C-alpha cells in the first residue's frame, strides 16, 4: 500500500490553473521532496494533501483512504506543518505543544507525557518553559514539527520547512527528518532549495502545475548530460553575455549573482578558449571552475527557468 497516491489532480483559482493533472506516489517510509520555483503549485499541492484546500478535480489516497470520502480517518494519519509560524508567541513551547496534542483529542494525562517525550525527541526539553517568542527560527520549526508527530501519524507533510533557517540549522533539521523517517513515518516536503531536496530518497521536480521528472536525487543529477562552467567576473553586462552566447549558442546560460553559469557537455574542452575569448573582450575574470550539476541545474536544463 502506498503512503500517498495522488492521481490526475487539478486545481483552479478562477481562470488560473495551478495544478494540471498532477500525479505522484510515495512508498511507505519514503522521504519525498517536491522541488519547484515559486508559483509552480507545490504549496497548493501540499495544502490539498493536508486536507486544508479542496482540489478542482482528481483523487488522493493516503494509506489507501480517499481523503475526500474519509477525511476524519485521514486527518488522524497526517501531520501537517504549514509554511507559517503557527505557534503562539505568548505561550511556552510546552504549552503550545500541549495545546495541539489536546486539540488532537488526547486526554490531559497522556498529553502531558507525550509533550515531554516529543520535546525530548526534538531537543527542546531545556527550553520547554520559555515563551516561543524567545525561540530561534530553528527551535520554532522543530516545535512546529513536533505538533505534527502525534500518535497514529504516518505521513508528515511539510511546506518549505527550511525557509528562513541558516545553513547549519537547515542541515540539523534535515538530519532530524531522517531520524523521524527511521521511526517508520513517511515524509513529503516541498522546497525550492536543491540542497534540501537532495536529503530526500526521491525528488519530484514540479513546474507549471505538473511534475516534469521524479527519481532519486543522484539519478536525477546523472540524467543531466551537462556539466557547468562557472565563471565569476568583476562586472556583468550585456557585452559579456553576448560574447558567451556567440561562443556557446547551443547551450543554456544562466546569469548568477557573481557571474555566469554555462551548461556544456564538454566543459573542459571549451573552458580555456572561452576564458581567452572573454579576456579579449575586456572582461575581468575572478574565478573559473567546472562544477557538477545540482538539482537546481537539472531543473534549469529541463525548463530553462531559474529556481526562485
Amino acid at each position: 500500500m502506498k503512503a500517498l497516491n495522488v492521481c490526475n489532480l487539478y486545481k483552479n483559482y478562477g481562470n488560473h490553473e495551478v495544478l494540471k493533472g498532477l500525479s505522484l506516489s510515495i512508498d511507505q517510509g519514503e522521504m519525498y521532496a517536491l522541488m519547484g520555483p515559486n508559483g509552480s503549485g507545490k504549496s497548493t499541492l501540499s495544502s490539498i494533501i493536508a486536507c486544508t484546500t479542496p482540489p478542482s478535480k482528481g483523487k488522493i489516497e493516503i494509506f489507501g483512504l480517499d481523503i475526500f470520502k474519509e477525511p476524519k480517518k485521514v486527518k488522524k494519519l497526517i501531520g501537517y506543518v504549514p509554511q507559517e509560524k503557527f505557534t503562539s508567541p505568548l505561550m511556552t513551547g510546552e504549552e503550545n505543544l500541549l495545546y495541539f496534542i489536546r486539540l488532537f483529542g488526547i486526554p490531559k494525562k497522556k498529553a502531558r507525557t507525550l509533550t515531554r517525550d516529543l520535546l525530548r525527541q526534538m531537543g527542546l526539553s531545556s527550553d520547554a518553559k520559555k515563551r516561543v517568542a524567545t525561540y530561534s527560527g530553528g527551535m520554532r520549526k522543530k516545535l512546529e514539527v513536533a505538533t505534527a508527530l502525534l500518535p497514529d501519524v504516518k505521513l508528515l507533510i511539510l511546506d518549505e520547512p527550511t525557509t528562513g533557517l541558516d545553513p547549519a540549522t537547515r542541515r540539523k533539521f534535515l538530519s532530524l527528518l531522517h531520524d523521524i523517517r527511521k521511526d517508520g513515518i513517511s515524509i513529503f516536503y516541498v522546497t525550492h532549495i536543491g540542497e534540501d531536496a537532495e536529503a530526500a530518497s526521491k525528488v519530484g521536480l514540479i513546474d507549471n502545475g505538473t511534475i516534469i521528472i521524479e527519481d532519486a536525487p543522484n539519478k536525477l543529477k546523472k540524467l543531466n548530460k551537462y556539466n557547468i562552467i562557472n565563471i565569476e567576473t568583476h562586472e556583468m553586462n550585456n557585452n559579456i553575455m553576448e560574447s558567451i552566447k556567440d561562443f556557446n549558442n547551443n547551450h543554456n546560460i544562466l546569469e548568477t549573482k557573481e557571474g555566469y553559469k554555462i551548461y556544456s557537455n564538454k566543459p573542459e574542452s571549451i573552458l580555456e578558449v572561452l576564458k581567452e575569448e572573454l579576456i579579449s573582450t575586456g572582461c575581468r575574470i575572478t574565478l573559473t571552475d567546472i562544477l557538477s550539476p545540482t538539482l537546481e541545474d537539472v531543473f534549469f536544463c529541463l525548463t530553462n527557468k531559474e529556481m526562485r
Partner: protein
Amino acid sequence: MDQILASLNKTIKEYTRNRLSIISTLGIPLFFMIILPNTILDIPDEFIPQIKGFITITMITLLIMSAGQANLAGFVAADRARGLYRKMSSMPVIFWKETLGRVLAVLIFSCFCTLGILLFGISLGAEFHGKMTDLIPIIGFLILIGLSSVGTGLIIASFVKNESIATHIGVGVSLVIFFLGGMAIPFSDLPESIQLFAKLHPVSSATASIGYLLIGEEMVGYNPFNFLQMIITISLSFLLFIIGKYVYTEYCCKRC
C-alpha cells in the same frame, strides 16, 4: 471536551499575557473609574455614590466589550495570519468545540475582570441598591452582553485579517456603542433616534437593565423592563452570537 479545554486554556493565556488586552480590559476602565467622578460638577454629594455605581456598571460593560469585540477579534485575526486555522483544518478538530472554548475563555476572563472592577468601584465609594433576587437576572444580562460582544468580535475577525486593524475596529465599535448607548452620555440627553438605538442594541439595553436593578430608573433614564425590549435584547444577543459563530466557522475555519 479535550478540544474545548485546549482552546479555552490557550485563549485565557493569551488574554492574561497580552499587555494590550490587560490595558484595554482592566487598565482603561480602572482609569475612567478614578477620573470620571471628579469631572462631574454641581451634583449634590448624596448622588455621588450612585453615580459611581453607574460608572462601575458601564465600565464592566466596556471591559466585556473590549474583551469580546476588540481583543477576541485581534487574537483570532492573529491566529489566522499565523496559519493556525490551516493547521487545524488538517487535524481532526471539531470547530464548534474550538469556538466554544474561545467563547468560554472570554466569559471567564470577563467574569474575573468584572469582579475586580466591582470591588474597585465599591472601594471608591460606589453604591448599589439591588436585592439578592436580582443577582440571577444581573448575571443573565452580563452573559447577554458577553454573547453579543463575542458575536460582534467573531464577525469582525472573520472579515478583517490583520490583527491590529481587527483590534482597532473592535475598539471603535465598542466606543460607538458606549457613547450612543446611554453609557457615556445620559440617556435623557441623547436625541430620540439615538435613544431608540440605545434601547435596541442588546449591549446598551442589557447595561440599562443592570443599572435599573442596581441603581434605579433616575440614573438609567428610562425603565428597560418591558416585554418588547426584553425580547429584543435577548433575541438580538443570541442572533449576534449565532451570526458571529456562523461567519467565524465559514470564513476563518473553513476558508483558511
